């Protein structure tokens, strides 16, 4: 079944996006819609002693106001992913306490956003400030201010998970490398901010939401719980989404809109502005990782001990994701037989944490790859050689790591070798030596990583002790309409990954059509798109589950078409094929029926159907990736399912006088298995790598001791521009996964994972004469200057 899958087709969705005819959330206008604004706490931590919103109603153009007390009266608390030891209530607005600067305390709906913001200024809130806690290690201490005194701690999860003979590995070791690494808070900040429109139908007691939420399955569960309305009376629709990368979800905002809409009797739209987005939507966890790497003197890595403190901000709803993802990938691409992982998921009075591109893995990879680089330095081994000695070999695949991840396929050594070759590693080492002689500081950095796809929700049982959700699955629909044309829909809303094109390619191959013949629905509509709780855009899961759902649905339609054709043509099903828009007898050009004709039978002329065949040509299929398994008794689990891999080589030059770091080249060789659309795949590699470069050199959410965000606009929170990064050079290997229907693996997060480590190694290499160790990010010019000065 080859043909369209695998081709670098230009995208179907581009024509409308280029012409400005995309339809993003803020482009959707519902009749009579009002605009909401949110009043947000100026304090990082405070009791709300009083709130007076009575003046709001007097402002012309204001139609509804919602306070925390209203939210508590009108909705149920948002159910957390990880139940806490003591039940804690978290509503869509702060009720009696605020726990980060920017936390919403009230909301207003008015005829326009400006009026709503004017109205907010009349609301008087009496705050009694409490001490902030902004450092995660400080938040662990028994004397720390507590976000939830009833909990008695700021720690939402603490555990030590050990696999293999850790004590033995460390005892046998010739040496142990010990380092502490830190990573900053940053976020992928899609260019379109998050938003929603809620509409309430009083007659049906039903809600409709338009939103750029990337996890509709999860959000619909929360909405139903909190609004006390069954999902059958909720509808959630996603329009075009302007990037997501994990950031695009905040069910609380949908609840605020819903409650305002109900009060006002009109639809209510809320779109966060950029300051709200940067300060209050979500940040990837910052944190600290203490790493101990036990090794033999020949460089063989024997064991890994990690203490990982993840700073979740005020995230009661979905903490521990970063820890869990790091655990599942902790040995990276290496054959390390023993692992101990101590996790802390800690609350602080800062913006809530959330998923980000790479979610936890950029830090995991930074820590592990830095440790490997430092080990190479210590043993005076070439960093590439050290890696090659320790990689899981291609022949060992599928290979199960101590925590239970199964690396399905790949040749990590070949990936690295190709990267070094494409980079001209030897050549650049020579040029570097010449440059050094001239006083120039050139540096070369290498980093490699695995890139998982799919998340098996059973892994959360490690934390909660029970299984509420599990596996990794997605649903899709393929339908021939009565006019014989094809329509497909996917439970995973596209956020820029080109699903309208790739899904069309897959369906076209299955049905003997061209991608132009297959209309793929833009986005998600819970009324018509098949969906599961697990539906959504996360964890690189497209290749792992979505493809299977589409293939399954397409094949079901294909099989039915063939059965109907066989019946009408009086031929055997096995003698028939779908090609060029027909069902035809293989090798007999005249004997065939166009799909339109088969649709006529299926939908109109139903007496012509084979006996027992029901009318219609539509299939809905949900695909569960078979690799997902329940938690093992030894606490191993396949928390993620298939594994791509990549090697990055980075060349930097450092200005001796200013400390400025310039990235001269960045080469990526990656292997994501079968590339469904190489053009789209390469674009993902470019974009995800630049995310990593931004994290390495520019991006940082910095807080002061009082929990005030100092980098609160795009003037201070620095995103990489076209002038900051070079062309990303990309090459590929292709080791298909044996465990996905088309052999594809994940690719969306890819470059964001090893890129920061590659840059860090390059900078360290450039400063080799100074014996500098890069242990944290971002690498600012000032930090480099201090290294150059010797302190």
């Amino acid at each position, binding site marked *: 079944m080859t043909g369209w899958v695998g081709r670098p087709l230009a995208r179907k969705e581009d024509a409308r996006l280029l012409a400005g005819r995309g339809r993003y959330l803020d482009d959707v206008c519902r009749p009579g819609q009002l605009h909401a604004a949110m009043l947000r706490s100026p304090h990082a931590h405070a009791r709300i002693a009083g709130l007076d919103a009575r003046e709001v109603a007097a402002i012309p153009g204001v139609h509804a106001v919602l306070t925390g007390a209203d939210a508590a009266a009108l909705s149920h608390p948002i159910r957390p992913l990880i139940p806490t030891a003591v039940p804690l209530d978290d509503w869509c607005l702060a009720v009696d306490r605020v726990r980060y600067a920017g936390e919403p305390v009230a909301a207003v709906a008015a005829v*326009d*956003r*400006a009026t709503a*913001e*004017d109205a907010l*200024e009349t609301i008087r809130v009496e705050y009694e400030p409490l001490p902030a806690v902004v450092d995660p290690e400080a938040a662990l201490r028994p004397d720390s201010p507590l976000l939830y005194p009833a909990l008695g701690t700021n720690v939402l999860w603490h555990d030590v998970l050990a696999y293999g003979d850790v004590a033995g590995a460390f005892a046998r070791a010739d040496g142990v490398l010990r380092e502490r690494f830190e990573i900053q808070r940053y976020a992928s900040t899609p260019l379109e901010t998050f938003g929603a429109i809620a509409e309430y139908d009083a007659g049906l007691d039903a809600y409709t939401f338009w939103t750029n939420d990337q996890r509709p399955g999860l959000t619909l569960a929360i909405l139903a719980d909190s609004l006390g309305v069954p999902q059958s009376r909720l509808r959630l629709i996603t329009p075009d989404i302007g990037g997501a990368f994990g950031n695009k979800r905040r069910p609380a905002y949908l609840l605020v809109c819903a409650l305002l809409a109900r009060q006002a009797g009109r639809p209510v739209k809320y779109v966060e*502005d*950029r*300051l709200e987005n940067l300060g209050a939507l979500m940040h990837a966890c910052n944190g600290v990782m203490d790493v101990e790497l036990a090794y033999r003197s020949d460089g063989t890595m024997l064991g890994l001990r990690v203490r990982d403190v993840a700073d979740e901000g005020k995230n009661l709803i979905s903490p521990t994701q970063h820890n869990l993802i790091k655990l599942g990938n902790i040995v990276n691409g290496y054959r390390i037989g023993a692992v101990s992982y101590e996790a802390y998921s800690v609350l602080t009075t800062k913006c809530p944490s959330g998923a980000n591109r790479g979610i936890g893995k950029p830090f995991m990879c930074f820590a592990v790859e830095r440790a490997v680089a430092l080990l190479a330095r210590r043993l005076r081994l070439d960093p590439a050689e050290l890696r090659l000695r320790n990689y899981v070999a291609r022949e060992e695949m599928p290979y199960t790591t101590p925590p239970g991840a199964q690396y399905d396929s790949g040749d990590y050594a070949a990936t690295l070798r190709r990267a070094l070759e494409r980079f001209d590693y030897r050549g650049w080492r020579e040029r570097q030596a010449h440059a050094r002689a001239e006083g120039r500081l050139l540096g070369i950095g290498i980093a490699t990583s695995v890139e998982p796809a799919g998340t098996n929700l059973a892994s959360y049982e490690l934390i909660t002790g029970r299984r509420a959700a599990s596996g990794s699955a997605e649903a899709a629909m393929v339908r021939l309409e009565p006019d014989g044309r094809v329509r497909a829909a996917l439970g995973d809303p596209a956020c820029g990954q080109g699903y309208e094109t790739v899904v069309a390619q897959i369906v076209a191959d299955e049905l003997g059509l061209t991608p132009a013949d297959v209309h793929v629905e833009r986005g998600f509509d819970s009324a018509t798109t098949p969906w599961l709780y697990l539906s959504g855009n996360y964890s690189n899961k497209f290749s792992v589950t979505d493809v299977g759902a589409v293939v399954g649905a397409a094949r079901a339609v294909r099989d039915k078409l063939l059965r109907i054709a066989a019946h009408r043509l009086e031929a055997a099903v096995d003698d028939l094929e779908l090609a060029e828009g027909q069902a035809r007898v293989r090798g007999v050009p005249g004997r065939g029926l166009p799909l339109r004709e088969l649709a006529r039978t299926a939908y109109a002329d139903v007496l012509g159907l084979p006996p027992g065949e029901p009318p219609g040509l539509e299939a809905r299929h949900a695909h569960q990736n078979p690799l997902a398994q329940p938690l093992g008794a030894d606490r191993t689990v396949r928390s993620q399912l298939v594994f791509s891999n990549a090697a990055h080589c980075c060349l930097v030059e450092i200005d001796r*006088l*200013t*400390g*400025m770091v310039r990235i001269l080249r960045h080469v990526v060789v990656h292997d994501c298995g079968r590339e469904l659309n190489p053009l789209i795949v390469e674009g993902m590699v470019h974009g995800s790598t630049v995310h990593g470069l931004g994290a390495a050199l*520019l991006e940082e959410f*910095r807080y002061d001791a009082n929990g005030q965000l*100092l*980098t609160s*606009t795009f*003037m*201070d929170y*620095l995103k*990489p*521009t076209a*002038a*900051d990064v070079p062309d990303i050079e990309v090459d590929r290997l292709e080791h298909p996964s044996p465990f996905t229907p088309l052999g594809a693996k994940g690719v969306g997060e890819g470059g964001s994972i090893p890129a920061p480590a590659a840059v860090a190694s390059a900078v360290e290499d450039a400063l080799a004469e100074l014996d500098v160790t890069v242990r944290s990010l971002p690498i*600012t*010019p*000032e930090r480099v*200057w*201090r290294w150059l000065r010797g302190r």
Partner: protein
Amino acid sequence: MKPAPFDYVRARTLDEALAALDADSKILAGGQSLVPMLNMRLVRPTRVVDINALPGLDGVRARADGGLDIGALTRHSDVLTAPLVKERAPLLAAAVAHVGHRAIRNRGTIGGSLAHADPAAELPAALLALDASALIAGRGGRRRVRLDEFLVGALTTALRADEILIGIEIPDARGAGWGFAEVARRPGDFAIAGVAALVQGGRDRCDSARLVAFGAHERPVRLRGAESVIAGASASAALGEQAAARTAADCRPPDDVHATAEYRAHLVRVLSEQAVRDAMSRTAG
């Protein structure tokens, strides 16, 4: 992020603009600094006076004395490309190239930048190095203020609430060597620190220098210690370094989220050396 409400006056004449100004009003020229502050409600004027329609306030004109008159409403992108600027004040063109990005430069004005007086901005510093003067219109008439006095502090100038900056006068700088260097986190960002240099002299001697650092104090600051090293000195390869060694005393750089005072002081030193060297290589000889 929508502004608080304000009245809007689109002035057609200078007198109309001046009459509309009061303590609670803001002048709208390019808007590239004002409008973000309006959007964030960091400023809440009761009235915005749009001066973009005022005639005759834009343009670059040659002065008889060899200098330039630049209308306050001249857009950065026009300053950047004006042949007269390249010819008579290339330091200014060099500075403007660092201001934001094209879309910002198309709207932002030289007068707006000067009146806004961000301590890390390129233009006020370059103009100070050029010994420019601000031409100011008020209800009582006009006045001319040299930039040394015009730039008072961070975001503070000698402009009164009922005055409008209408032009900038740049004296003859032909034959002077110029240098401009800055460090910013990304191209187009505000500088962490920078130096604008203008050196008068010949091939063998430097007569005088004006060295201005930005991002190094509450306002663009003359590096007088460094200037005194250069004044009257014979031109040598080491002169830049010698001058740079004397910059610290004149700086009082801020500590902020992007850099410490110490790093900024260091940058002023290395950028001074570079700017002086470049300026010396450009003096007519």
